[in-house]
């Protein structure tokens, strides 16, 4: 396959997400402008100007009209996808890290980093249908985990929130009462900070990637460990194919150490694993820095990766990918 290279960002990529129809790809980077691309040919559709800091993550409403972004400028913003105009700004006292719309797009979960003595927190905000009525009040604020919370997503039926972060523990919270329901136990869990978390398409299980050089597959209701994928480098990004039983792990050596070694030593490929047999299928090379973000097109026929090198690489699979056998 010949990947499409998209060089719209001037700084390392942080997050990638497709809309539900799979025709738009949203990218966030440490430069201040989240960008939207056409997912088939990689043409840039527009940028969302208004943030004043690195943008850490984003989410798109199911009907592809609203975008929410979380940024290090201590805000999360709601945008009109079509025109790029900011609709509302949620102000926090510390950088916003992870954002996720609930099923139905009426609620959003936003996590904030520990900052100037403030602990990290998970905020639940109500999203008004009409941006005129939008308010900044939190429905619920969850506190407790030590260190940064790198990702928080909604569980089945919006009843729970799953969070993971620097303390390497996965937690399931009740989204109604704010009670801590479950925690991953020490033996099964990750040994180092969890960098990424990605839900399966049907929402029955999720995958976490960690700096302990492994990725783990968990049941979303019981928090039972299902599978472990072991790799030889820190995992920064994970994604699951919606079409085949494949998982992709991206990562590489720490960005600060890249210049001290040969580029091949960094292991900057996106590695494909069989989801069930946990065996490696293959690797896709190309980035010359660690991979920070991965996303699968909802049709499962293409995927994109974003690297520390500032490039988004969009790969449309060759036909023989679909009948790979181990």
């Amino acid at each position, binding site marked *: 396959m*010949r990947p499409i*290279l998209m060089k719209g960002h001037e700084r390392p990529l942080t997050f990638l997400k497709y809309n539900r129809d799979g*025709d738009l790809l949203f990218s966030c980077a440490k430069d201040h402008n989240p*960008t939207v691309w056409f997912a088939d040919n*990689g043409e840039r559709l527009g940028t969302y100007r208004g943030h004043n800091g690195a943008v850490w993550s984003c989410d798109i409403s199911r009907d592809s009209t609203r975008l929410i972004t979380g940024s290090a400028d201590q805000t999360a913003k709601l945008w009109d996808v079509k025109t*790029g105009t900011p609709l509302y700004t949620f102000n926090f006292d510390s950088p916003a890290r992870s954002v996720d719309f609930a099923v139905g797009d009426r609620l959003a979960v936003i996590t904030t980093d520990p900052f100037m003595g403030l602990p990290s927190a998970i905020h639940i905000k109500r999203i008004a249908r009409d941006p005129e009525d939008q308010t900044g009040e939190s429905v619920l604020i969850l506190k407790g985990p030590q260190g940064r919370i790198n990702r928080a997503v909604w569980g089945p039926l919006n009843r729970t929130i799953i969070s993971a972060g620097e303390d390497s523990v996965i937690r399931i919270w009740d989204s109604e009462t704010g009670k801590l329901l479950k925690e991953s136990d020490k033996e099964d869990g990750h040994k180092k900070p969890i960098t990424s978390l990605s839900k399966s398409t049907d929402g029955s299980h999720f995958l976490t990637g960690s700096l302990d050089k492994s990725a783990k597959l968990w049941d979303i209701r019981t928090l039972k460990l299902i599978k472990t994928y072991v790799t030889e480098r820190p995992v920064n990004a994970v994604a699951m194919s919606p079409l085949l039983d494949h998982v992709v792990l991206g990562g590489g050596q720490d960005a600060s150490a890249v210049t001290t070694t040969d580029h*091949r*030593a960094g292991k900057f490929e996106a590695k494909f694993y069989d989801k069930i047999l946990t065996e490696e*299928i293959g690797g896709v090379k190309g980035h010359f820095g660690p991979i920070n973000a991965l996303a699968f097109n909802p049709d499962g026929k293409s995927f994109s990766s974003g690297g520390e090198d500032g490039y988004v690489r969009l790969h449309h699979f060759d036909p023989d990918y679909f009948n790979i056998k181990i």
Partner: protein
Amino acid sequence: MAVEAATQPSKLRWGELEEDDGEDLDFLLPPKQVIGPDENGIKKVIEYKFNDENNKVKITTTTRIRKLANARLSKRAVERRSWPKFGDAVHEDVGSRLTMVSTEEILLERPRAPGTKQEEAKVAGDPLAQIGKGGAVLMVCRTCGKKGDHWTSRCPYKDLAQPSETFIDKPATETNAAAGATKGAYVPPSMRGGNTERTGTDMRRRNEENSVRVTNLSEDTREPDLLELFRPFGAVSRVYVAIDQKTGTSRGFGFVNFVNREDAERAINKLNGYGYDNLILRVEWAAPRSN
């Protein structure tokens, strides 16, 4: 495309039709006609033009419009296609080239050849794994290829061997890190002081020895074709086909790197002289070998 000329059809070339002769007599021409597309997707465009000799020419362009079979986009997605650009994308100039198609063919690189059993792969992967661990020492002489007997620098056949490519990497493995430093070769800070955290580099270097040169390839052989041809012999770590930058066609040769030397050997024995795409392949070791 069908081109008909009203007069002097013999002197007409299609390339000339596109050119404007500067004279403004276009108003004399009948208007452009578009017929179709009909139920078979056939569309006809009839245009009239003056050619260089001021003769009126009728150009009929017949095109077939096809719908892509796998293009199933939702109505919303089709609508989004025509959205105006916004933000920084508005002022994007044509030369900015933000989106490019990679010039390199990227393959999903398999860790081992498909079809081989896992046990087989384990045996093959073992020496490599040992190197990867860094703790276990695998003594392989790069000059004569002997295993476990001596290091490259102590090779008794060193003088017989022709000077190989400059291998000044891995100063640490020879004797120790200090010895490497006194030799004057640069040691990256991370490797100094006996830091033995080995990375993939030396492993790769060694693999490049199992490089096979394939010549007399047909013009339309591409990397995936070559991979398909060589994969049955064992795990392939790299496939490269030389492409002429100007014409974009193959230059007729390429390289295939195998993870294991034995696989490369077998591939050479089997495929040298093999008929591929009406040409007879020539397959040999990439660099002239000393032994």
